[in-house]
């Protein structure tokens, strides 16, 4: 029956080749390459491909409800499947803000209905992201959406008392606060990384200290109250040093880096093209190298995309008027291959840890980021490490086009994605997991 897939000859986590039999939503058999019976099964020839656990993105903006012109849960989920993801955490800065059980359940159910990936809504820390009063974190945790990650992403929880209370409160349901570290006063109207280049370009500087000061404060708060803390999108060498110090002290902190901060530098801002405008801003070459090293040595735990779709008119304008953010889901694997794998900093097992196992652990997504082993949920991604690809903005699944990589060649491609044993990406086609498979 066509519900069974035999993945023939894939290198599991980049190691030895094996056949994987997916049946009834789980990995039913693992055999020597070429040994699995293909009877009644659909065979996926995977010689030379790397099998990874389905990728998990802890930081995605799906824009629904409110900005369906930029992205919907459906279109963002399609983009995720195309990028090799089987789960995404949808940030709370929608309109209305995901600060109640009602909104997170709406997003959760839209994700279910779309059927491409597991959509885990992130709950806002404060009401309306205003940084003044705690949102009903417990209600969101107890809702059908089972929220475990809370973030005001896009805004920083800058009030130290409020941050302390949030860190404490979420312990009751094993939650985590994911902080967008940006001291607001130091970054009023900030446009780009503050340094020699911002002075030359006449763009208001966004100093590294505005990020680092908040991270330093937060790790000390987390230590003081014995909570876990997750730091969103680290972008500076100094942030790396603070997180490294905190971990050496045994503080329960995890950190993420985006693909774009692993690859792109502030030099691109010379074009004044807002496709390169992002929060936190692109930094220097030195920062990029520090972030890569930190991701390799485990100081930074995960890669998270900060996929941030924007409609054309919000980018096709003057720099200062443009929205901040760039697409990420459909290019993340290629960027990580280029910056971490091809450079020898990480092997594919290391990629699996940073893009699937660890993000699932941090987000408490218990059936995602599982080992590729018999009886485990069949969430899988097949990557061809040798198939390079030129990024074409018009070919993306996302509803938006604001990719900074258009025209760039990326060294690896996602070939197939399986969600609980059913393909969401196969033979170049993206499809939901809950229909067609039984036809």
């Amino acid at each position, binding site marked *: 029956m066509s519900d069974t897939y035999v993945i023939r000859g894939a290198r599991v986590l980049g190691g030895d080749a094996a056949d994987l039999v997916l049946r009834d939503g789980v990995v039913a058999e693992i055999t020597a390459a070429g040994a699995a019976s293909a009877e009644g099964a659909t065979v996926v020839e995977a010689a030379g491909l790397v099998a990874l656990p389905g990728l998990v993105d802890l930081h995605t903006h799906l824009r629904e409800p409110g900005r369906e012109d930029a992205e919907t849960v459906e279109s963002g989920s399609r983009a995720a499947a195309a990028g090799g993801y089987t789960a995404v955490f949808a940030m709370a800065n929608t309109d209305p803000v995901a600060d109640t059980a009602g909104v997170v359940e709406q997003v959760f159910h839209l994700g279910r209905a779309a059927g491409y990936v597991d959509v885990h809504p992130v709950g806002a820390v404060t009401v309306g992201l205003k940084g003044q009063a705690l949102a009903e974190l417990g209600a969101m945790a107890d809702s059908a959406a089972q929220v475990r990650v809370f973030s005001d992403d896009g805004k920083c929880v800058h009030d130290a008392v409020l941050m302390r209370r949030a860190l404490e409160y979420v312990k009751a349901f094993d939650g985590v606060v994911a902080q967008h570290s940006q001291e607001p006063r130091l970054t009023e109207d900030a*446009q780009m990384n*503050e*340094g*020699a*280049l*911002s*002075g*030359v*370009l*006449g*763009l*208001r*500087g966004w*100093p590294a200290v505005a990020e680092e000061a908040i991270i330093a404060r937060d790790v000390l708060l987390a230590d003081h109250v014995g909570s876990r803390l997750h730091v969103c999108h680290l972008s500076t060498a100094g942030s790396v040093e603070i997180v490294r110090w905190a971990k050496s002290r045994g503080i329960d902190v995890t950190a993420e880096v985006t693909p774009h901060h692993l690859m792109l530098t502030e030099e691109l801002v010379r*074009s*004044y*093209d807002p496709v390169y405008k992002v929060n936190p801003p692109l930094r220097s070459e030195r920062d990029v190298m520090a972030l890569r090293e930190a991701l390799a040595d485990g100081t930074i735990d995960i890669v998270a995309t900060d996929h941030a779709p924007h409609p054309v*008119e919000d980018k*096709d*304008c*003057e*720099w*200062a*008027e443009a929205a901040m953010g760039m697409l990420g889901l459909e290019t993340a694997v290629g960027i990580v291959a280029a910056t971490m794998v091809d450079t020898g900093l990480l092997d594919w097992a290391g990629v699996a840890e940073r893009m699937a196992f660890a993000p699932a652990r941090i987000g408490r997504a218990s059936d995602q980021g599982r080992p590729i082993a018999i009886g485990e949920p069949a969430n899988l991604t097949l990557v061809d490490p040798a198939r390079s690809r030129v990024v074409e903005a018009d070919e993306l699944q996302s509803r938006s086009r604001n990719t900074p990589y258009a025209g760039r060649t990326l060294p690896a491609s996602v070939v197939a994605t399986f969600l609980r044993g059913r393909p969401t990406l196969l033979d170049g086609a993206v499809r939901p997991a809950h229909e067609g498979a039984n036809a």
Partner: protein
Amino acid sequence: MNRHLLSAADLDRDDALLVLDTAAELASLTDRAVKKLPTLRGRTVVNLFYEDSTRTRISFEAAAKRLSADVINFSAKGSSVSKGESLKDTALTLEAMGADAVVIRHHSSGAPHRLAHSGWIQGSVVNAGDGTHEHPTQSLLDAFTMRKHLAGGVGDLEGRRVTIVGDVLHSRVARSNVLLLATLGAEVTLVAPPTLLPVGVETWPCEVSYHLDSHLKDADAVMMLRVQRERMNAAFFPSAREYSRRYGLDARRMALMPEHAIVMHPGPMNRGMEIAAEVADSRRSVIVEQVGNGVSVRMAVLYLLLGGAQLGSPLDTATEA
């Protein structure tokens, strides 16, 4: 020369001298009874101004008209822009009208760069001041003025010492002047309180100081920058009076300057703040002359970017009645 003038860095030494020499030639032609030349007849120059700027807009308008170009003035206030039209749509409209050059003043740094490089328009783009980035024609008119007083009106500014004082952080005039004056061989010193200097200023081709008195006795020119009123309440300095005492050019400080040294200001001035009235009105002040030179320099820029007829004898005989 490039097709656009977006930054003073677009000009190498030869380009800069070509603009200055052309400006000098145009100035001598238009000093005669007939002020108008036919060189840009049939060409359209649009002044696209998103910020209020009487002096720069009028200067560009006069420059284009003296070259016989058709001039369209488009200011953001009371136009489609105030109804929310984007820069892109405005640009497409101007393109449809056949603009050969667009002179743009914009509050966002980089807006002229976007206009020139986004494929929205085909014509030349002249930056008439963008945000806190650059104002290249201001630096050209300043260099023109300095050359006239300090170098006999010919050649470059090799070895001349220029002290630029004030809000460097937010000044597009300072950025363009540092770049152009370095290209022309002048030695520039920026003087400002540390709060009004950008991070990374040590990488600029100039010296930097916090003390004004030390940089007056060797100066050939002292250029005072305007201090915007909104800076006064943002902790860049404690008070207007303290700023004025430490960084204002008053009669005592002017007396420290060499006899031949000139005083400059891009305008509009805050008399009593960065510059004392008696200094602004003194015989060393070339501030009013700067304005007049602005027209000649902008004529040269438009002429060179739009590739008008050769200067020289044909032009002399072709002047309009």
